[in-house]
């Protein structure tokens, strides 16, 4: 990778560049994006519409005909079994939030180490870590349960958090971002100034890797938010369930008991909202300001 000496910050040159670009709207790209957006929104529209129907209407009226019972459904959901749905939501936020943060941090530090250091065993260790994705979680679930049972940790919050922190995909992503975004010159400069390696990581590398790590955080957050099998196997106390497992028990109650369809659909809709809010909040981290103007080959 070739590096140049630090160039003047780009911000000063940006306004000129923007002014020289044509200002019209690109119709075709906008249209294609809109089509893609509509394709993705269509099933989500079903969730919204279905959650406005009362239980009797759900299988009686036309699929996309809205009802007026959204408020009743939310009330029913909130009062079911003493408001356990909201407890599930808090649980999920805990699992996904803490797990996502821990995972992003771990991926960051691991990706940085792989990208910016040369050491014996580097390729081997990386390949072993990556090989973790080869074995699907379905086969790991029961062995992980037995292992955690030996540690006495089953049916606790740790049982869901700890296995979720390691994310080979996140580490791979972080490595790529670290390699692309952090110039060696910066690290060398900091080392020359006498900074500790830890300080270099937190003060120099982390801020530059932030957009990539935000992606890793979002990925792992959603993965844990939607994870079903791990909490299903690990937890036997329904007060510790995340929303996925909780709604599953409302939907799959066996042949002999009616499923609580409306509650499940309303619960699913409500659980999308925090994810949308999170996504909107994190969007600003994807505006990247490069620290130096080095050219990447």
């Amino acid at each position, binding site marked *: 990778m070739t590096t140049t000496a630090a160039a003047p910050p780009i911000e000063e040159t940006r306004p000129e*560049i923007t002014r020289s670009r044509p200002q019209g709207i690109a119709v075709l790209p906008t249209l294609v994006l809109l089509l*893609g*957006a509509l394709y993705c929104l269509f099933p989500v529209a079903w969730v919204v519409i279905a959650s406005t129907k009362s239980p009797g209407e759900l299988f009686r009226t036309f699929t996309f005909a809205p009802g007026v019972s959204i408020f009743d459904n939310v009330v029913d959901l909130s009062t079911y079994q003493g408001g356990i749905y909201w407890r599930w939501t808090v649980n999920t936020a805990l699992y996904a939030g803490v797990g996502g943060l821990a995972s992003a941090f771990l991926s960051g530090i691991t990706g940085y180490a792989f990208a910016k250091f040369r050491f014996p065993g580097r390729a081997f260790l990386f390949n072993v870590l990556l090989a973790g994705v080869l074995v699907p979680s379905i086969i790991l679930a029961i062995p992980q349960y037995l292992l955690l049972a030996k540690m006495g940790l089953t049916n606790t919050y740790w049982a869901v958090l*700890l296995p979720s922190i390691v994310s080979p995909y996140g580490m791979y992503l972080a490595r790529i971002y670290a390699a692309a975004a952090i110039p060696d010159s910066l690290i060398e400069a900091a080392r020359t100034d006498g900074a500790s390696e830890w300080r270099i990581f937190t003060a120099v590398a982390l801020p530059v890797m932030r957009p990539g790590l935000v992606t890793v955080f979002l990925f792992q957050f959603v993965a844990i938010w939607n994870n079903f099998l791990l909490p299903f196997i690990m937890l036997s106390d329904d007060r510790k369930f995340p929303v996925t497992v909780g709604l599953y028990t409302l939907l799959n109650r066996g042949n002999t008991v009616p499923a609580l369809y409306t509650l499940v*659909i309303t619960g699913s809709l409500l659980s999308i909202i925090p994810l*949308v809010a999170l996504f909107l909040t994190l969007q600003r981290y994807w505006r990247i300001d490069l620290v130096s103007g080095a050219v990447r080959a």
Partner: protein
Amino acid sequence: MTTAVDRVGRPVRRTTSRAVPYAFLAPAIVLFTVFLLLPIGYAAYLSFRRVQVKGLGLGPGSRIEVFAGLANYRAALGDGELWRGALRVLGYGAILLPTMLGLALLFALLLDLHRSRLRRFSRISIFLPYAVPSVIASLLWGFLYLPAVSPGQYLLRAAGFSEIDLMTSRTIYVALVNIAVWGGVGFNMLVIYTALRAIPHELYESARLDGCSEFQVAWRIKIPLVMPALILTTVFSAIATLQVFSEPTTLRPLTNSLSTTWTPLMKVYRDAFVRNDLYSAAATTMVLAVFTLIVSLGFLRLVQSRAFGQENQ
């Protein structure tokens, strides 16, 4: 090695300890060993064991675990259903991967165009499917696919056409690919988009000043520069495809065209969670993992230089 000097001009010894990278990697390695290696090891151990029943098999001590040698592996490799499942997955992947990754790349490039409008709306809309909980997937796709309740079929009927059965043994691939694309294009788009945003803009400005169209800029400059991210998403999507489980499981209760062993991983799930036979499940998983490893290693070797071209090799 030249001697570095600090700001005052005194020579500074490089004291970066050799242990630094290992210390940084320690947490990941510990967690990985405990939560991935040990369970994988246990699963591998189980794949060489099986249950032996004594007598009627009811009552205490009537089931013991014995060494099985390669019996589970022979059973797995000799199971015609496993090979048929593998073929189905390959066919499914052949349709899914180009579609999903092509769309993800296209949307990412379009989002990166300064002149596209509604970018924020499109970005979040395309990401939204990733946020829909999988617990209602069977319900959701049941409502959208099954003829009696599907709005699409309703429109077809209203327009005078006959219904299209999306869940015959042939068309089920389309139904499954649709679900996978809908659910997966958002995240892959994001990964590529983030990589695109990391490219400094001066790189295109000179090309634009030379008169290149946006399409040429995309084709000649952007795509090659995001190649590592593209390869990343391709490899991981390919691995996820080989391990496809949730989409067929979602559609299975709705149709007669899918079996409980339609893909290899569904067979693993059935063995482990329905038949409570962890031993066969473990053996099948090991076979599947080896196959996936060969495929991904082969692909990575092909593109090794492109994947990590930005690091000092």
